[in-house]
């Protein structure tokens, strides 16, 4: 693990460098960074995906029940 981390750390630092002044969306009185907006939108998307995507149970897969 440390060896892999060293490789990642030295070669990449990180693949995408987020160390620049952030970009912000201004919507009415709301000001939000694109990073936070992405996280919030993703949460809503994941929530609805979770309740809409079918969850295959053992029975529906043709299991022994």
């Amino acid at each position, binding site marked *: 693990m440390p060896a892999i*981390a060293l490789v*990642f*750390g030295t070669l990449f630092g*990180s693949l995408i460098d987020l160390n620049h002044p952030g970009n912000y969306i201004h919507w009415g009185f709301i000001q939000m960074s694109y990073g936070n907006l992405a996280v919030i939108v*993703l949460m809503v998307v994941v*929530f609805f995906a*979770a*309740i809409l995507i079918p969850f295959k149970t053992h029975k529906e897969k043709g299991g022994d029940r």
Partner: protein
Amino acid sequence: MTIADPKAPRADQADLDKAADRPEDADQWTAKIRTAAVDALPPQKLLPDRQPAYVASWIYVFGVVTIAALIVVIGTGFVLALFGPNWWHVSSTGLFVNSLHLWAVEVFMFSMVVHLWGKFFMAAWRGKRKATWISGVVSFLVSVGAAFTGYLSQQNFDSQWISTQAKDGINSTGTGALFNVTNFGQMIMWHIVLLPLVVVALVGLHVLMVRLRGVVTPFAAKNETPGVDAATSGAEVQA
């Protein structure tokens, strides 16, 4: 007193499993605690291998995803603690482990909130599950506090900013006298000792309560009378 061979099966084995080895010891605190615990959460209930048929949605995985993320947070925090608070500023491996810790926290909070939304829309407090709901909300709050002390322990510009700004909010409540966000030593001890213990205890309690009460049943269907036993929803009864 001779004691029978412990490996031989006994006629009263079922009773013995519950109470003390000798009837006169059943009043012992130890025996009473054990009996109460096993009664409340027998093994089949503590680690069940089946769930009601209505537990069939991806929304149900977010509780366990939150716990998995918490374990990664604690594990990466453990590594950061191994090398001390200065390590990640001077080592690229350290910075990587810090990144793991940060993103594990983001995944943890993300999945906890999705779990909260799911439990809200299921009204999961119904049926004697109020304590489960409340312990969940309190876990959320303590987790926010744990993340806050983590941000304060970074020893970089971000922690300087957060501490000098947050002090105003906290001072307004009077707790600034005791909880000094600009005191790095105090904040890091809260972050790596006190709050993780509290979070783990609360989450443990929360999960035990879920096992105790079971997963909340759905609201009545259109052709059901609310409050009547929901036996029409499946031909089989729990075995």
